[in-house]
């Protein structure tokens, strides 16, 4: 099953797609950031991954130059896409037209981690106050 997805992704994008065993109970595939829209469209059309459970953003302690994005899909079993973005200027394509339910997830990631989503400029803040100036809260070093 996962092997099919890997071959499909590689034939679709022409880039490498790695299987990573980072999450205990899920299949994780690492793709590059530019391919996201293509991959999501393909997954939706060909493999019927409709349900996006969540988008997790995080910064790894040992490799803090990157913002890691995890797209958790579900179709009877969990399946995760992993992307790595440069922390200085994290930009990623929005998938809101393929999966409209990703709207709030993307906005949350954008506010909390400062990730920019293409095609989604000028969206009002969802969780933070309108006059928030301190930058993305999850990137600050302040102790909670």
């Amino acid at each position, binding site marked *: 099953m996962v092997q099919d997805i890997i071959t499909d992704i590689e034939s679709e994008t022409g880039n490498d797609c790695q299987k990573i065993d980072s999450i*205990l109970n899920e299949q994780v595939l690492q793709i590059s950031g530019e391919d996201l829209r293509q991959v999501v469209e393909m997954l939706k059309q060909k493999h019927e991954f409709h349900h*996006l*459970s*969540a988008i997790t953003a995080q910064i790894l302690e040992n490799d803090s130059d990157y913002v890691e994005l995890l797209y958790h899909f*579900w179709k009877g079993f969990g399946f995760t896409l992993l992307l790595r973005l440069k922390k200085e200027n994290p930009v990623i394509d929005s998938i809101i037209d393929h*999966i409209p339910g990703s709207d*709030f997830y993307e906005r949350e990631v954008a506010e909390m981690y400062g990730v920019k989503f293409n095609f989604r400029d000028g969206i009002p803040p969802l969780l933070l*106050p309108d006059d928030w100036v301190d930058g993305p809260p*999850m990137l600050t070093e302040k102790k909670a």
Partner: protein
Amino acid sequence: MEKITIPIGPQHPLLKEPLSLLIDIMGEKVTGGTLRLGYVHRGIEKLAQSRNYIQNVPLIERVCGICSQVHTTTYCYAVEKLLGIEIPARAQYIRALMCELERIHSHLLWLGILCKHIGLDTIFMHTWHDREMVLDIMEELSGGRVAHAANKIGGVRFDLDEDHGPMVISIINKLQGQIGKLRDMVMHEPTIKARTEGVAPLSQDDIRKFCVVGPVARASGVDVDFRRDDPLPPYDQLDFSVVTHTAGDAWARTIVRVEEIEVSMKLCAQILQDIPDGPIEVRASRRVPAGQVVVRAEAPRGEVVYYLRSDGSDSPARLKIRTPSLTALSILPKQLSEIQVADIPVVVAGVDLCIACADR
């Protein structure tokens, strides 16, 4: 006719929790709306990173004021998975019992709120009286009405003694009679049906697109229930049915939830019958080995997702919580069009919002 924008929230009698809805109306017709969250954003995800795993259990319990048990159950399960331990079967059953009781009380609460918003305070008070019986069970068992503090990493905090089983069974039997009456009241009262039928229907396609979960999805005919499809133990050993409906409107959501209450009551009886003897906890280390885990569970409102990453210390490196209310909120602006002003309460109450959950 002039277009007016009415603000519903952050403070409004319709909302029990702060949420800002800006609704455009023309006369009595609603043409659209936008929403804004964040009034109860407590930064729990960030806060969790600076506390140890044990301190996080009471913190996670406060993500939601209604479905607190399922949040700690999911969190504890995630930590136990990373620790590589499996809790005793008795503890699993006690957790499931609390989850099911919580589902009953959450759905009863929802039913009461819906009836209150459409001006039927009698059924509101009667359902909340019945809900109080469930809360009494939970308080008797765990010591708290909504903040149960029943779970700990490696098991549960309390054991069922020989009096508890019959006490729960007798209250559940009494409740079953009450719910039967309530069901008749709700199903056959003409004005409830007149107010909810055909209001803001969602098709299966909408549900799929917006990744909506829980009773709202099941009312539209999407047969998804994480108790069955991706079960945490002991749900894989329990026998229950998943309630679905096809209409997708507020009336279908009412029916689905009322029937789920009955399924949950049967599940409670089943759990109390099947519960094995044995210990209720295993020793868990304070330090959690490095690793990542994703756990999904079925809360009363739908799927909760916990992503947990540990770096080997005694506090989590990243804890991501996705609550079902977030998906319900994302489809709310779509539902708030082509309805009447008087339908706003039905729509907003109908998707069963928990703003504290969505804000975290």
